[in-house]
């Protein structure tokens, strides 16, 4: 798949322009690989297979690349990173109770190379690099065309439920007890015989609990209002006709189905915000993957040989 983030925002060339001339080496220590394999075993109760091992190592490589990239960008000057460096300098100070200014502590930690080994500092920097790269995409506004394309490509995901718009004339079982069904049958016969229009028929029933004229509603909404049996029976009723009586939890109903609408994809305006958020995050993920591939090309990566099980 093409890199959505890069293509959408024309950022590829700009980023390629920053490639350094000198190649560097990234070496993943055997101990690090062993550690992530151990975590995998703890979680999964088995050793990773070859593909999984490759993914684990790729993650380590990505982390290292992001860390090195963050150093290039100067993210170690970020206050959070500086605080961490000062803190670890304090850990190893000859006098741990000595009060060292933050900048001085950070400088000492870097001199001692502690920034290369402290996992918290490394994570702060790698996270920073990751956020920066993703922000390139997240801060952009996709065009209308992009949103519309995304909507169509993910139609299944955004599809709205089908609906039915009905008019119902109710015979309330609480009012009529065992007579309800018979009364409803009489009602149905009369409506058909006299060809009573839906709007006029409502007044012939018990106007309780549920309005006679309902907006287009999904089956779930209809079930909430009438119960399961009613909706099951409603499925067999033809459009533009009277049917009944249909049994609901409240009694019996003579029903006119005005229209049924199949499940449909809503227009962009109704779901634009959701699409924008989803598209941007997907694009940001793609862009991050792409950038990591680009950055990889700058390094000679040395990975220890590890048996797959």
């Amino acid at each position, binding site marked *: 798949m093409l890199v959505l983030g890069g293509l959408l925002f024309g950022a590829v060339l700009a980023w390629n322009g920053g490639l350094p001339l000198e190649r560097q080496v990234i070496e993943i220590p055997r101990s690090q690989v062993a*550690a*992530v394999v*151990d*975590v995998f*075993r*703890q*979680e*999964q*109760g*088995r050793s990773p297979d070859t593909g999984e091992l490759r993914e*684990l190592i790729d*993650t380590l490589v990505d*982390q290292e690349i992001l860390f090195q990239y963050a150093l290039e960008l100067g993210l170690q000057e970020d206050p959070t990173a500086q605080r961490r460096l000062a803190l670890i300098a304090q850990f190893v100070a000859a006098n741990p109770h000595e009060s060292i200014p933050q900048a001085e502590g950070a400088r000492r930690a870097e001199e001692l190379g502690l920034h290369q080994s402290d*996992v*918290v500092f*490394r*994570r702060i920097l790698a996270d920073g690099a990751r956020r920066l790269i993703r922000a390139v995409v997240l801060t952009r506004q996709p065009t209308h065309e992009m949103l519309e394309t995304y909507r169509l490509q993910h139609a299944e995901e955004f599809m*709205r*439920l089908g*609906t039915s718009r009905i008019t119902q004339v109710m*015979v*309330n*079982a*609480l*009012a*009529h007890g065992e007579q309800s069904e018979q*009364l409803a049958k*009489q*009602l149905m016969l*009369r409506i058909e015989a006299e060809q009573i229009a839906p709007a006029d028929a409502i*007044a*012939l*029933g*018990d*106007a*309780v*609990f549920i*309005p*006679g*004229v*309902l*907006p*287009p*509603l*999904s089956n*779930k*909404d209809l079930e*909430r*209002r009438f*119960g*399961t*049996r009613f909706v099951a029976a409603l499925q067999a009723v033809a459009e533009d006709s009277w049917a009944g009586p249909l049994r609901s*939890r*409240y009694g019996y109903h003579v029903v006119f189905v005005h229209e049924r609408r199949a499940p449909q994809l*809503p227009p962009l305006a*109704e*779901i634009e915000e*959701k699409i924008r958020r989803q598209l941007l995050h997907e694009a940001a993920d793609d862009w991050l993957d792409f950038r990591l591939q680009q950055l990889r090309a700058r390094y000679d990566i040395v990975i220890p040989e590890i048996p797959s099980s």
Partner: protein
Amino acid sequence: MVGFATITFLGASHAVDHPAFEDTEGRVRCDNYSAQRQAFFGATHLHTGLSFDASIRFVSVSSGNNPRGAYQFAKGESSITLPGSTGIQGIPADLRQPMIDRPLDWGAVTDHSEHFAEMGICKNFLGPEARGRRSLECRMINGHGYMPQNNLSNLLARTLASNAFTQLTMWGLGPISRMTRTPLCESKPSECVQAELAVWDEIQSAARDEYDTSSECSFTTFVAYENTSTPLGSNWHRNVIFRNDRVVNQPITAIDMAVSLNPSPLVGGLKGAGVAPSFIGDFVPANDPDVYPVPAGSLVTHPLPNRLWNRLQRECLDNENTTPGDATRCDVITIPHNTNLGGAVGLVPALFYDPFNTADAELRAKFEPLVEIYQDKGSSECRWDPRFKSGTETSDEFCNFEILDSASLTSASGVGGGDEGSETAPEDFDSRSYVRNIWKDGLELADTQFNGVNPFKMGVVAGSDSHTGVMGWHPENEDWPGHLGIDDLFPVSRPSTIQNSSGGHGVAWAEENSRDSIFEALKRKETYGTSGTRPIVRFFGGWDFPRKMCNTDFVETGYRDGVPMGGDLPARPSGAKPRFVVAAWMDDFIGTPLEQIQIIKGWVDKNGKTQERVYRLAGDPGNPNHPERGMFPQSCELKPGGHEQLCKTWEDPHFRPEERAFYYVRVLEKPVCRYSTHWCRERIGVNPLDPKNCQADLDILADSSNPLEKLRASHGAECCSNQEGFPYVQPVIQERAWTSPIWYTPE
């Protein structure tokens, strides 16, 4: 000609410009808007693999058992993965990969907030290189690397989980007991904060992504968590539920509620032989209002619930520390649960302790409009124990429903050897272990101590508390997979598991299925709870209702001239008696007919004593002591009878205008076989409804030379339990619904 009454329908059904609730979200209104309100079935209490006590029981976040997975399960979009062996012992694979039987309307995932940090680290929210990732805490949370489907016996899995639970909560020292963090987070506080926020962020994101903000309004989510304060094992748990996407930046947890935090367990303590470790902390002095309700002599590290409410006031309601969100303001409620496990224990007051003063009473009433009356760990309505032929301040025999043998949270959860219980006399339970008694005491406290403020004026919801992510699914059949992950793989195997029920619903009468509408229904208490089925219940009270309302549009009359469930009767016209209308319709998906509807009244008499009385309004009297007589014992089929709908207008014949009172409705369905009965019949091969042969059949399995049959006997060891011995189990139950009360306050 058919001539029916015609009554104009109240209100519009769609295209609403001015909804009946405050619109804090600015979202489109729902197609399903109805001014007369609809019953939306939901969940206010549900755990996923993101809860530490689910994770130690092998419920796996990475398998999709997480907040997103739970919401998608509730919507009927996908199944969810439960841990456990499949394909043996008659447990088909799909039992551990269930789908909901019908979608839910709304829900809130309430994972335990106290261990968000550990979960964030151990579940890779900070990546595999997080320093704490290799800690003992993570080993426990990740099941020590065992995979139950491959190589773990159920007994060993339970033992691992029980040990991990004890160590991660550390009675006396841990994060939900004495308000200290685990050693992992004591030693790596910044990493833990980062991890906690990452988990909290994921909970918010899941709620945002799974909320249907279109006009279809098919599903509503709430950002929420469970505050798990558990002083010395006593249940003071509350679900914290936010109105919209503007929520506190960081959950306020039990750890934040300590009178004062324990010093770190990582310092002190090694000061030499005989010197007590310093992390025990100080003791609460006598008569100190600042630490109420913690009793004098307790350790100061006990939790102080006011600290939760005060911080929610400041950070949420006063908007001082909220996420940006799109909503106009932050709003929140807390819902306590399991009063049945929250009675007074030793120095620890009951979950519903007497407030210290009127301001304290007001604070509680403000933040806690609801209480959970029923869930997987039993009913909290009331207690009648047929084995003792007595109750906890009640003689109502229908209070024999889903009662637990123990008042201890650990026993109910089966940890720390908690299965070794025995039946406990009703008199040995604190009276405030049960909601009905708490309501009664609230009337008395309002009269005698708090200038008319009733601190316990709560409505009800029912909940689940399942730790398996199965939001809104409460099947009363052999598909019920238990509620505690691997512990309940065989839910009929042990006293602590078979006593767990399948949980129930919270139902909100709201205009539409949106956050604002549902949340306001919760706040005004227009709610009811069910034990798992979905009957519809309406309940209105007023002074001048017609004597016969059932054949009219009593919903319109009820709203216009009275109040719905959860409301306060308006000022009493001279000489009037309160009149109520109650209607219930059966769940026509399940198809169990209704047996009866009751009104239960509680009041304070002229001598200041609390009283209660149960009135049967409509339907049949039933047989609370022998519900099994409503069944065919060989088939679990219902005997004929019952009602599809019941309705009654009722006036209180014993009303005294000078007495405070509450009235709530209980709807009882016809008896059905409990899930455990179906389980034992279908999966173990013994019949709890045939007590004479049940144990003999189980013994035959146990003595079999076939190892699989022996295992089956072990997995069904508690199948022959019933209401006559320990553990207490009703093989046949009456599913039910409880409404919020309507209150009467004298002028």
